[in-house]
Structure formats: C-alpha cells, structure tokens
C-alpha cells in the first residue's frame, strides 16, 4: 500500500478551496476510486457525480491536475502521485457543490439545434436503405457520451464565456451527426453560422485532445461544418453555380 495526497476542491457557488486528503492507494485504482475512498473514510459530505465507472456515462468529469478528464478512466499510475494530485470540478460550468457542476446549459443549448427530419421512407414498410459508406462518418459522432469535457476545455466558453454566442464543440458534433446523416433533410448551416457561432472556433483542437471517446471533433466535425458554412456564405463561385442549378 502507498499513501497519496489528493487536493480536492470543496465548496459551492459562493466559493471554495482545495482541501488535502491523504489516503491509501493500490494497484489498479482510478481517481474516482480514491475519491470514493476519501468520501467513505474522511469526508462523508463530499459531493461527486458518478454512475457507470466504465467511461460510458460521462458523469464523473473533473479536472485532474488541471487536465479535464473522466475520473473513472484516469488510473493512478498515469499520474504522478508522489506529489499532491489536484481534483477540481469543471471550471466552465457553475459549481453546485464540491466536484458537482451544473451542466444544464448544455441540454438547453442542444434543444436549439434543429431536430432530425428524415426523408420519405424508401420502402413501403416505412424503413430506409442506407449504405455503410454513407453512415460511417456520423457513427463516429454517435460515440459521444456527453461528458462535456470538450465544452469545459473550449476556451471560447471557459475563458470568454460566450455561452450566448457559441454552442461549443459538443453541439458541433451533434449538429454534424445530423447534418451529415444521409437521410436527414434539414439544413442547419445557417444556424451554425449565426445562432451557434461556429466562427468562434479557432481550431486549437483542445476539445479533440480531451475527448475520452477519441472523437476527432475538430477535423471530422467542426472543420467540415465550417467548410459547409463557407459553401453557403463565403463562396461566390458556388453561389453562382447554385443560381444556374435546375
């Protein structure tokens, strides 16, 4: 058994501070295990949101040593436990208590994205026929577990707080999943430019780096959507072609 010190942020919306907890750790433990152990042995009132402990529910998002990560997927042997390990809530969202933040803005923002509207069914039984090659791109986006780590690390939201202007990487992925769907008939490009502020993304790829599902957010979702916005708003040659399209 080894002893490790964890500095856990304790507080609420009014404020808080890091508090030191030293506990025994063993092989195979993840950060969430250590937090649970501290909660059981030293701080019964420590608030932490968690559910699956398997990296699939997206509940235990936090900042471990300043890196946005899922606590259940961060093994202690991946970090230096000879020094105190800091565990903080996601800084981008308002604090509720300790490690729990209010991420409800994300669900409200998601509702502003135009819903999926399929074309008329291909078969009399009300089903559609799709080629694998056409749905491969959007399948990557369906892996999103809505942990909101990408939203947390995005500097447009984190440092500039442009919540009213920019929907954030998670919702760009969501919009891309709908916009590139082979049977969807809606056009979200205008909304992406105006209401969802895709132009605010400056492609620093922090969202891609923190995604626990390894979704290539910037290259496969945001940039292709930016290119579609260029098609519709900033490309006079394409506009000319569209004018003469039958």
């Amino acid at each position, binding site marked *: 058994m080894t002893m490790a010190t964890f500095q856990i942020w304790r507080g609420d919306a009014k404020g808080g501070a890091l508090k030191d907890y030293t506990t025994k750790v063993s092989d195979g433990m993840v950060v969430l295990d250590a937090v649970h152990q501290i909660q059981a042995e030293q701080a019964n009132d420590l608030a932490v949101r968690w559910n699956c402990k398997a990296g699939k529910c997206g509940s235990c998002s936090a900042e471990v040593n300043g890196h946005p990560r899922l606590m259940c997927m961060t093994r202690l042997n991946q970090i230096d436990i000879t020094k105190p390990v800091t565990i903080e809530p996601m800084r981008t969202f308002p604090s509720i208590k300790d490690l729990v933040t209010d991420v409800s803005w994300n669900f409200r923002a998601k509702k502003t994205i135009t819903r999926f509207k399929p074309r008329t069914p291909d078969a009399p039984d009300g089903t559609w026929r799709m080629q694998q090659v*056409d749905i491969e791109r959007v399948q990557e986006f369906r892996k999103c577990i809505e942990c909101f780590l990408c939203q947390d690390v995005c500097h447009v939201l984190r440092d500039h707080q442009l919540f009213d202007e920019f929907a954030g990487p998670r919702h760009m992925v969501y919009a891309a999943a709908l916009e*590139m769907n082979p049977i969807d008939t809606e056009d979200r490009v205008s909304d992406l430019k105006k209401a969802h502020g895709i132009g605010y993304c400056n492609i620093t790829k922090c969202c891609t780096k923190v995604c626990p599902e390894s979704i290539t957010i910037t290259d496969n979702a945001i940039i*292709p959507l930016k290119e579609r916005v260029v098609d519709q708003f*900033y490309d006079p040659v394409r506009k000319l072609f569209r004018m003469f399209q039958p």
Partner: protein
Amino acid sequence: MADAAQPLVLRRFGETRRSDAWWLTPLAVFCGFSAFIIYSTWAAFQNANYTFGPYLSPFYSPEIFGDSPHAWFGPKPAAWPDWLPFSPALLILPIPGLFRFTCYYYRGAYYKAFWMDPVSCAVGEPRKSYWGEHSFPLILQNLHRYVLMLVMLVLGILAYDAWKGLWFTDPATGTVSFGIGVGSLILVVNVVLISSYTFGCHSMRHFVGGCRDLLSRAPLGTKTYDCVSCLNRRHMLWAWCSLVSVGFSDLYVRMCAMGIWSDFRFL
C-alpha cells in the same frame, strides 16, 4: 442560444493547475515558424543564388521575370518602379505563404503560439475580448479554398522543376543528359512532401466528398475522399515536413550556387 451559464472567476494569463510542460509545444512552434519566416523573407529579398545548373529554388518558382535561364518572360519589366524592391520570389511567395497562413492546421498552431488565444489547453489567456473567426479580420481565413486552387498550379510547376532537375547540360558539349544529383533528390522529395500536405488539406477533403451526405453515389469520389482523409489524418506532420523541406531546398540550391556546397552526382 439557451440561457447562459453563470459567469466564472477568470484566470490570469498563464494560470493553470497543469503541472506538465504545457509551454513547450507553443514555444517550439513559435521558434519553428519564426525561424522559417525570417529565413524565407531574407531569401526572398536576395534575388541572387537561387539557381544552380538545372535546379531552381522553390521559393523562386515559377520565375515569371528574372535574370536566370529559368525565367519565363525574361528580365524584370522596364516599367517596374525603382523604389519597389524586385525579386522573382516576391511575385510568387505570397501564394504558398497565404495558403499556409489560412491552413486549418497552421491557424490553430499560430493562434496558440503567437496570439496565445489560448496559449495552451486549460491555461489562462492574456486577453478578455475575443472575436475568433466570426468577424473581420479573421473571417478572411475563409479564403483558404481559393488559395488552394492557386497553390495547385504552383505545385504543378514545382513538379516540373523537379523533373527538369534531372536533366543536366554538359558545359563542354552543351548536350543535355539524364542524371541524378543530391539536389535532384531534394527537389523531388520536396514536391512529394508539399503534395502530401496540399492534397491532405481540409478544403480539398471537403471538395472531394466532405460536401456530400451521400458518398455512395460517387464511388470514385469515395475512394478519393478516403485517400485525402488518409493524408489529412497526418496533416500536421505533412505541414511541418513540407515547411522544412521547402526551406532546405532553397538553402541547398543557394549553398551550391555560392560555391559553399558541391552537388554530388549519383548518375
């Protein structure tokens, strides 16, 4: 957009809980880009030592006007104002320069390394205001696809230069024969690396299939999209390799032309 979340306490510039060397990558990018910008600007204004035998520096290609045998239309036009510095490179370098400036990889890299917006992920920023690419001037980055078209033309000319770099003239007899020198290989490698960078561009990926929802309707387009996507996955690598190779190609031709290095011939 939905109601905004509560405001946060902003962090100061550089403030972070990260304990790793987060400053290393932006510093390396800053040094790399700065070194290239300084060297290429210096080389572009030299207007000398840019050819050696069949080799032509990629900074000076195509040589539209100039004094070397590679010039398309002869020497500098008589109407060129005296007060305006002339160099064949100044006529052509804005095209690849603008292509790299508006490239999605470079944008992300120099926003971090030069503008510090953000300097690194989850690290405090120096400024409170932010416009991104949503408004002027950075909205002009959307010109990237047009610059891509121009760069494709320049790339074709560079490929032709690499081919010409394989044909050497015997100074005694004046006969032209096939040969391979170190410079020939450098120019060929340079074209391969620039092609890998250019054909893996995000705008190219959009043109060949990214703009479609139904890739299956264009089987040839699907294969092209897959190839471009394959190159695109290593876009950063190609961007750096091609940057180094184009700079080194100019340096090699320049050193040979100045007599400091001698070009070794394999054939």
